């Protein structure tokens, strides 16, 4: 039984990270119907900025005296960097293709994904880059279940970010503009909503969440790598689809499900096949509910 609860804690942690990445996919998809393959690389970039900031502070000796300042700066700078990266991506690779076929847009995103991951390999090296471990180690026990500080931090941090996102999307003017553009871009434009501005905002929000996830993954697993964005990217996109693409609650739910399935499959069945189980769940759910768990009826838009 203890093992079971332990798995739940682990699953929640992984699920929160997937959910954060999945939100970026689902929002971008909702607004311009693009599977943003470069999103996984934005997540990786966040992880790298986190490690760069933290090692810089550690080498200067600031990290030992002000660990929380270091953590705060790592997150904020990673988010800012990824926001800049996302705006650059949108302007260079996606905006010129706004009226082109969706396949061209998809391949443009794929090209950027290859470009970014190799660019990071060239600038940061092929090998894992280790995070300074200063508070990744601590933890406590609840009735035989070990909960690390990092896990608590990740779960609470993700929940806060998601609540913030929900407030933003539902309560602010910009959020309203986003929802409106996602529903009908032409009509919103007629009503005076700046489509370009709204789309860029969406990309920026997605990138900020992915950056947070990147730093969290770096802290949790202790290292980052140039190609670490690919598999989580695919799984997060699966999570977004599983929840019903374009639906924010769905993405969070989907992320949690994929995380849980992966952890439980690794714990109880076979760890080398954990990704297979995640995909099988995805396929099964989509077979019985072709538009995802929370998805609405999709229209006939094809490739």
């Amino acid at each position, binding site marked *: 039984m203890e093992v079971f609860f332990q798995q739940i804690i682990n699953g929640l942690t992984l699920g929160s990270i997937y959910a954060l990445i999945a939100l970026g996919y689902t929002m971008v998809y909702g607004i311009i119907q693009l599977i943003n393959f470069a999103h996984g690389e934005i997540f990786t970039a966040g992880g790298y900025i986190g490690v760069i900031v933290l090692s810089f502070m550690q080498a200067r000796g600031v990290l030992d005296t002000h660990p929380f300042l270091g953590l705060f700066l790592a997150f904020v700078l990673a988010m800012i960097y990824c926001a800049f990266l996302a705006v650059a991506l949108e302007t260079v690779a996606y905006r010129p293709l706004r009226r082109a076929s969706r396949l061209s847009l998809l*391949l443009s995103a794929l090209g950027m994904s290859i470009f970014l991951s190799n660019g990071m390999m060239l600038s940061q090296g092929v090998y894992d880059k280790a995070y300074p471990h200063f508070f990744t180690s601590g933890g406590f026990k609840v009735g035989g279940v070990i909960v690390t500080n990092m896990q608590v931090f990740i779960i609470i941090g993700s929940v806060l970010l998601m609540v913030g996102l929900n407030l933003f999307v539902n309560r602010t003017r910009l959020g309203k503009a986003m929802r409106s553009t996602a529903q009908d871009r032409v009509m919103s434009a007629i009503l005076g909503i700046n489509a370009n501005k709204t789309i860029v905002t969406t990309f920026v929000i997605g990138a900020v969440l992915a950056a947070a996830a990147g730093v969290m993954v770096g802290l949790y697993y202790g290292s980052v790598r140039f190609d670490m964005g690919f598999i989580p990217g695919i799984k997060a996109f699966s999570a977004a689809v599983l929840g019903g693409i374009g639906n924010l609650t769905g993405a969070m739910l989907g992320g949690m499900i994929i995380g849980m399935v992966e952890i439980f499959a690794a714990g109880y069945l076979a760890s080398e096949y954990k990704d297979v189980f995640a995909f099988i769940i995805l*396929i099964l759910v*989509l077979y019985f509910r072709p538009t995802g768990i929370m998805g609405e009826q999709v229209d006939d838009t094809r490739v």
Partner: protein
Amino acid sequence: MSSRPLLKFAIVLIWAFILLFPMLGIEEDRFVWDRVLKVMAVITAAGMLVLVYHYFLKGLSLRPKVFDEASTKFRPPRRLLIGLGVAGVLALPWIADNYGRDIAINVLIYIALGLGLNIVVGLAGLLDLGYIAFYAVGAYTYALLNTNFGVPFWLALPVGCVISAGVGAFIGYPTLKMRGDYLAIVTLGFGEIIRIVLNNWDKVTKGPNGILGIKAPGLFYPVVENGSIEFAHLYLKNLIWMYYLILAIAVLIMLAVYRLNTSRIGRAWMAVREDETAAELTGIHTTRMKLYAYMLGAIFAGFAGAFFAAKVRYVNPSSFIFLESALVLCIVVLGGMGSIPGIIIGAAAIIVLPEMFRGLALYRMAAFGGAMTAMMVFRPEGLLPAKRKAQEVEMERETATIP
């Protein structure tokens, strides 16, 4: 002369600096400037070129605005061109060295794959991101049959196709109800599942080590010996033989696709692509058509896969990663969806370009990714779009001007 381009240029430079500096310029606690400055210099130079173009060359017309077809004086007869092309393709392995032959064989493999995926994506409009799985099935079928039971290539080829088609139907069936990008992620998932299984099912596939010792295809040919006809056996190990073999396969697939394009099934696929509901209402069995598309695409990939295993005589799962699916998709879209010449050009570009970048060593893949985006941005409809598709675009443009 407005100053807007200059302003844009400045913004691009600042933006590039913000993005480059943290990644290139910080090592532990030191700031390293030379790498940042080098890359910035390259970006500045490129930007200058664009500025020069914008301010000085844009006004000059380098070529006549309206391309008048009749004004081109000499046009060699079509037959001559085709004849030269065929002769060139046939003579290629005798002209090229082994490196050239190898690349030519790869191009032909990817032409076969591109043509197969074109049926699924280009004709039937089903976005398949796990297409390489069928290629893997074909390759592993031949590898396993040959190493375990000694089945020769010519027998394994149809078996591989049948198995690939079966897998295609198996994957296709649950996805029939799904539309658009739900399909994309499910096919991607299937592709990954097959790769992971190949990677971990040690007993059968030998895991990441792969399968060694696959035999090349053989050929019996008659020889007259002491007055009686005997059959000698020859392994087609030579790259020249392999080239002709894959050429034959590619031409076969090309003919099949050419015939399919205008056949009843081909038109049914296009109807499904354009509007599934309308297609169903006109009496097209849409589920069956989609299954056919999957199975046929899978068969062609199975062909290519079996050949790949026979050529390299070694298979391992790392040949069947997602990037390969992306490459094949890129060939289909780059060439212009649905057009056979487009796919040939696309395959040549996708395979030859990275070879040309080989001098760039490590920068090769980054350059490739950048080139992929650039090609999509500058030619979103592909290099040689299919005629029917081009007509559609033309029509859309005409109707778009009417409010």
